[in-house]
């Protein structure tokens, strides 16, 4: 079953004493691909694009996550997106790149609570602790490719293509309840 973005409203979607899954407010998401000397793009975006996979950079309210050797995901408030795209368009002549607005593609789940790390182990084959606080990765979560941003020891954001969101939400909801039952 597909789930258009409008079928979710920002709110708490699953909650127990040990973990909580909520939906983040919509934001602008830009997929950036570029190679070579990134200085013109850094200047246009006002931040230094990280070059190690998994590293993040932040400038004001916009964030960049390095996904691959030539690939980044940018998050920003919806009001800033048009300006960022225009600034990058201006440097296209010096550094050809691809900047695509993919805001409509994903929803973001916010996972927190004392056992958020255990909740993640339900779906991810890699060790959640291999992602340091302040980093992020593209990972496999229960067969689905998602972006995982680690904002704190037990605070994560998970960007999921909205067609997979009901499936993952169901899994996470089960996990939240199971972890609570274990603690009781």
């Amino acid at each position, binding site marked *: 079953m597909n789930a258009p973005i409008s079928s979710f409203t920002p709110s708490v979607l699953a909650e127990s004493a040990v973990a909580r899954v909520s939906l983040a407010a919509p934001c602008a998401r830009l997929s950036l691909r570029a190679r070579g000397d990134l200085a013109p793009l850094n200047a246009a975006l006002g931040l230094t694009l990280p070059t190690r*996979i998994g590293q993040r950079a932040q400038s004001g309210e916009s964030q960049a996550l390095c*996904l*691959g*050797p030539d*690939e980044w995901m940018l998050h920003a408030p919806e009001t800033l997106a048009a300006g960022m795209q225009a600034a990058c368009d201006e440097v296209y002549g010096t550094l050809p790149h691809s900047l695509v607005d993919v805001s409509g593609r994903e929803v973001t789940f916010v996972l927190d609570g004392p056992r958020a790390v255990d909740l993640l182990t339900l779906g991810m*084959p*890699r060790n959640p602790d291999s992602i340091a606080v302040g980093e992020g990765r593209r*990972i*496999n979560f229960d067969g689905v*490719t998602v972006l995982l941003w680690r904002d704190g020891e037990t605070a994560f954001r998970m960007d999921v293509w909205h067609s997979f969101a009901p499936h993952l939400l169901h899994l996470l909801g089960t996990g939240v309840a199971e972890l609570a039952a274990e603690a009781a």
Partner: protein
Amino acid sequence: MLLIHCPYCEETLPEAEFTYAGQAHVIRPENPSGQTDDQWEEFLFIRANPKGPHYERWRHFHGCGRFFNAVRDTVSDKFLTTYKAGAPRPDLSSLTEGLK
């Protein structure tokens, strides 16, 4: 589960993040029309099936998305090394030295 080292992410990660992509170092001829049917068949279909170290491609699908090359022992399933796409084929004797 196999653990595979991604040469781009520089991390050793579970096999579930990767997909297999066939034999490595199969080079497409510069001028396909100049090939005989036998040569073209060889390029398209004929693959090595070694018992032992095998040069093969993998893709870090749920990650950086990159294709890279690996040498895997088809008997033990042990990865001898992984290296970036486009890098020269590593010398087998240097890889197996440590195993003896």
